[in-house]
């Protein structure tokens, strides 16, 4: 099982990412310990130079992390013929207990890495490294998660025993079995539709309030996170069926397949980008009073808010378009 090119590639990238993050957090710890902006010592100078290296490394980590998230799901999907009863990624992720937690962890690390880059960008706007301690503390939070992800991924792939009978997506994401996924599906469709559109409209309103009048930054950010979760639930609950044109098919992974024109990549990317940008607004809120950031931070937050609103709107537009013009009429 192990010697599949896709699995080897994922292993390689996990190892590289872990190595980079370990190195970065080691340097980060040094910075947290010895950083003194007022000093002109050799150590301080070296640390200031190192911050460039760390930003570069983390920038690449984020991009690789995004690639590997999609490669992972695609590989899980490609593995399904090896497991009797599995019909798509859901089946192969269900083969052992590591599959689904791994996907969730990958999404969390992606979001955190995105937030880190936003803080880093804000930090670079000020001449006196105003957010340096915050960003390296966040890095120390991110690093263990990425390491855990690497280990979990190894456990998942090494624990794959082909031929195990697993439940296919038809039975996990259908109404009559137990579990979180099944509960999402069995939520009444009408109320889920209301919740989804209400959440999107609410987020949009908060976003506009923030963009135009610079108010409710925290509220907007919280709404973005909440809507992120609601959108995923809504996708499983009622949006998916219009894409598959099958009232019983709720799988969140099948949409990544060729049959649906790879539209799933576009949808998930919009959600992820919107989520990172919107949460970034909230993360930056506490730093608006810092003298060296006073000028630049609000406009940067506005741009983030705009990016996030546009991404969510596009997501909603594509979903709504499909709901209206799908051959499936409910």
């Amino acid at each position, binding site marked *: 099982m192990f*010697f*599949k*090119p896709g699995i080897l590639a994922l292993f*390689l*990238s996990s190892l590289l990412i872990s190595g980079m993050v370990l190195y970065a957090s080691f340097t980060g710890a040094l910075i947290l310990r010895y950083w003194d902006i007022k000093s002109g010592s050799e150590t301080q100078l070296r640390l200031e130079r190192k911050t460039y290296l760390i930003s*570069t490394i983390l920038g690449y980590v984020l991009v690789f992390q995004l690639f590997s998230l999609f*490669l992972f799901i*695609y590989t899980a999907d*490609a593995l399904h*013929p090896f497991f009797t009863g599995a019909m798509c990624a859901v089946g192969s992720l269900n083969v052992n207990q590591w599959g689904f937690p791994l996907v969730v962890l990958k999404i969390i690390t992606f979001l955190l890495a995105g937030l880190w880059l936003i803080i880093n960008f804000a930090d670079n706007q000020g001449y006196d490294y105003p957010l340096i301690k915050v960003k390296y503390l966040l890095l120390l939070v991110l690093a263990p998660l990425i390491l855990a992800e690497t280990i979990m991924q190894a456990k998942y792939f090494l624990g794959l025993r082909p031929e195990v009978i697993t439940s296919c997506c038809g039975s996990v994401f259908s109404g009559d079995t137990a579990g979180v996924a099944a509960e999402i599906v069995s939520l009444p469709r009408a109320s889920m539709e209301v919740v989804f559109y209400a959440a999107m409209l609410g987020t949009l309103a908060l976003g506009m309030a923030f963009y135009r009048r610079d108010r409710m930054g925290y509220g907007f950010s919280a709404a973005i996170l909440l809507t992120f979760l609601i959108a995923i639930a809504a996708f499983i609950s009622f949006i998916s069926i219009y894409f598959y044109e099958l009232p019983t098919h709720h799988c969140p992974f099948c949409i990544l397949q060729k049959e649906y024109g790879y539209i799933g990549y576009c949808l998930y990317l919009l959600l992820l980008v919107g989520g990172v940008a919107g949460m970034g607004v909230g993360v930056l809120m506490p730093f608006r009073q810092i003298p060296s950031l006073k000028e630049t931070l609000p406009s940067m937050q506005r741009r983030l808010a705009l990016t996030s609103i546009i991404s969510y709107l596009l997501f909603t537009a594509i979903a709504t378009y499909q709901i209206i013009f799908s051959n499936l009429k409910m």
Partner: protein
Amino acid sequence: MIKAIDKQRYILDFTLSSLWRRKGKNLALVLVYTLVVFVLGSVMFFTQALKNEAALVLRGSPEIIVQKMVAGRHDLIPVSHGAQIGKIRGVKAVKARFWGYYYDPGAQANYTLMVPEDLPLKDQEIIVGAGISRVRRLFRGSSIVFRTYDGKPATFFIKGVLSPDSELLSSDLILISVPGFTRVFGVPPDRATDLTVQVANRKEIPTIAAKIVDALPDTRAITREEILRTYDAVFDWRGGIMIAILAGAVLAFLIFAWDKAAGLSAEEKREIGILKAIGWETADVLEMKFWEGLVVSLSSFFLGIILAYGHIFYASATLFEPVLKGWAVLYPEFRLTPFISGYQIAILFFFTVIPYTVATIIPSWRAATIDPDAVMRT
């Protein structure tokens, strides 16, 4: 926004001209990089193409094959078993198959003899595959003599040659009539090589296979999915092993890339020093290095992929055919159906571009943090 794009354009512009100024060094890098992508890409395209061929072939194969086992070995199956299987609900049809291998000392090769299901042949007529026709110079109307199981000669006339299009499958194939088959191999009249079972509903295949094994404990039932899965696993495994072996080459390439990126010439150092002296910031130099990496990586990556594609699908994978395909005397001559997917490209990207990028981060940063006055003074 426009300003930011313009800035990146100028940096890219500068990067391209600076790459061109050091053609020798950069072309050497691109060459090695392309070679690495080419080799890995060839392995991946080749295994995928073989998997596709197998899948195409198996699409037409029977849903279940039932074979009799004696002492753990495949044995001839009583034709009467077929009637029993036919009674299982959901079975559409059961057919007896006759096939076997015949060693021909003249060609020093094994032929596959098979009785076709729906092609009536007279007792002494056979149809041969293109490979046999080539090796034994057999054409329509000529004859061939087989040595039967009891040592007697049996003459057969060639009714036709199979089309070379199906050569991957039929290179060593001989189609023969049931009486002819019985005469060559001496198979008892109530026995067949195995039975094929057609199932109307795909979803019932595993259940029916289980019922067959239950009703006839001395048999094994092989489903089409199982065969397909096994082919997939075997080809993937071969490809994976090749890639693991090639990891050494990738590592060597990474060391080479690191070395190239770290070993800045005095002239390059001066250049970066001057850039910084006239107002470039560390971040700008890092951006320049990013574009440099992107240009080198993408050119080599796509060049390598195009070459690998040509190698596999137009030059029939000349370089490592014997390793990945296996070998035989009557080896079919065939051209693989071109196939390439985003997934393969993504994997290839993970094997080459990502490690390359990682290997050059630290050298780029070192170059970008050069002290302008220190460089210009030397």
